[in-house]
């Protein structure tokens, strides 16, 4: 099966800042760049025939330039028309969404050929011959998770036969905006902020040399803790700072402890959609922010407020040209900056938490998974997206942080939060 699309536009433009970041990332990661691919499932709502489903997909591609873009060192190239091959998969006796999730995951294992291939691959999952879901994988050069959420809303409307307003802002417009004097000045200011931070911090996250790594070397230790979610929510309400800042403060405190440093520097994964035009753009926008925190405050609530203010500074300075930033960082000595924090929740709080969840840590469990092959982080905290689980995980390089230490770190984050309520 295939769909033929004909968009209204074509052209070329420089890469946007978000695309430049991903362009650099896919080259740094090489064959393991499939880690960056974005698998996504669009459920088919109601009883729709195959042609309706394929039509909805065609309209999405025609509307959004990012879905008919190829990438090279020279920039982004938008094609007006093209053909996308669609695979049909019969789910059999299995649950349709489960099959769709698996199909999307399998397609995500294959690296994109960014200069020659469309930035998405799709399969329609059928149940008894009727479309059940659209399983896709996108290159991260073309979308981020916010963009996927925007596409999901349009997808639902298109299946219903609704007409959508024209797309107001495309990555090409974004590239033009980023070249403007105002945005270049903003980029320069962000780079100056990073330079100031880097002038005062060691080159490496850890002072100690790497030890004998475990096998596998890179692992993700996961903690599911209702107590963490309850504590972070209560502290957030009481202190009038976001629950992100509260959990970040606890993670920073723990990182300071294991690195035996009073100053902690972390990169914050940041969605970066602060401009009203960019907010609704289907494209990749996220850039990393840099936070610096001095762990001098003895009381945790005070440190949460400090963290919240510092995070605001960090987010503000997450608008920059990654090429210029890389040049500055190399000149500054090549700091590894290999400690990260990411909050994956789409909305504040944990609204789906069981109503009887409390501060008891008796229901907390931890377990370990292998990190995605090719991931090379020293320490990477992630707040899970699930609104019903207080999920905090940490990817570690076991040459620096053994599994038992990683597990203790997560428990210590939980203890700090629960203890401060």
């Amino acid at each position: 099966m295939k769909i033929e699309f004909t968009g209204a536009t074509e052209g070329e433009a420089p890469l946007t800042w978000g695309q430049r970041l991903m362009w650099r990332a896919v080259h740094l990661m090489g064959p393991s760049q499939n880690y960056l691919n974005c698998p996504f499932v669009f459920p088919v709502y109601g009883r729709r025939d195959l042609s309706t489903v394929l039509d909805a997909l065609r309209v999405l591609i025609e509307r959004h330039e990012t879905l008919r873009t190829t990438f090279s060192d020279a920039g982004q190239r938008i094609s007006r028309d093209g053909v996308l091959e669609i695979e049909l998969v019969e789910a059999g006796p299995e649950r349709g969404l489960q099959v769709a999730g698996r199909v999307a995951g399998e397609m995500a294992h294959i690296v994109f050929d960014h200069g020659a291939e469309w930035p998405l691959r799709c399969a329609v999952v059928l149940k008894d011959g009727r479309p059940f879901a659209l399983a896709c994988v996108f290159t991260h050069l073309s979308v981020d998770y916010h963009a996927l959420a925007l596409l999901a809303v349009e997808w639902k409307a298109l299946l219903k036969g609704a007409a959508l307003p024209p797309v107001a802002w495309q990555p090409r417009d974004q590239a033009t905006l980023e070249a403007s004097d105002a945005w270049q000045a903003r980029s320069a200011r962000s780079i100056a902020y990073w330079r100031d931070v880097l002038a005062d911090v060691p080159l490496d996250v850890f002072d100690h040399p790497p030890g004998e790594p475990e096998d596998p070397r890179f692992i993700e230790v996961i903690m599911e803790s209702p107590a963490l979610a309850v504590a972070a929510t209560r502290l957030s309400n009481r202190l009038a700072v976001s629950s992100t800042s509260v959990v970040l403060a606890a993670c920073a405190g723990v990182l300071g402890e294991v690195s035996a440093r009073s100053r902690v520097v972390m990169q914050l994964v940041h969605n970066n959609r602060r401009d009203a035009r960019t907010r609704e753009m289907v494209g990749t926008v996220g850039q990393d922010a840099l936070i610096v925190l001095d762990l001098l405050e003895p009381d945790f609530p005070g440190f949460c407020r400090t963290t919240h203010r510092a995070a605001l500074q960090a987010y503000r300075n997450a608008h920059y040209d990654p090429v210029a930033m890389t040049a500055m960082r190399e000149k500054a000595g090549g700091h590894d900056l290999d400690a990260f924090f990411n909050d994956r929740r789409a909305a504040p709080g944990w609204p789906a938490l069981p109503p009887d969840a409390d501060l008891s840590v008796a229901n907390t469990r931890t377990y370990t998974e292998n990190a995605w092959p090719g991931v090379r982080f020293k320490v990477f905290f992630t707040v899970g997206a699930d609104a019903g689980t207080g999920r905090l995980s940490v990817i570690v390089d076991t040459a620096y942080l053994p599994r038992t230490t990683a597990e203790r770190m997560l428990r210590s984050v939980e203890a700090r939060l629960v203890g401060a309520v």
Partner: protein
Amino acid sequence: MLGRVTGAAVVTRAPVTPAEPRTFLLDRLAPHELPGRLVFVAELPKNHLGKVVNAGVGRTDKELAQSGDGMTEELRVRLAGMIADASGGVISPDEVLAGRHTLSALGLTSLARISLIDTIEDVFGLEIDLSGDLPSFEDVDTLVAALK
């Protein structure tokens, strides 16, 4: 605090002249504690527990003391619109102007704050320093004071 003026909102049972409360306070307060602005109001805004709502007092102060100052009101309205835009429709300009809740309580996220600061910088052609107290502004009047 820099850029702030001490003010007093006064409720009286009987008519008094502006000089009378000042004379009363003169030997009770240090010179720097004396209110630079006096506003007579019918009643103080209170919350459901009967406590005075400070943000509301400030608003009364601005509205009455500067009733001749159309610029301030215009700036408040303009900033309230920007705050509403930055919030992506979560907060309405009226909610901002009413000042009954902090901007955080109304749902102004960190991302929206930065978006707002960007807009203010673009519109007013200035550079905002985030290292001071400004990032934690919780009402439109703090912003007005910072921009004046």
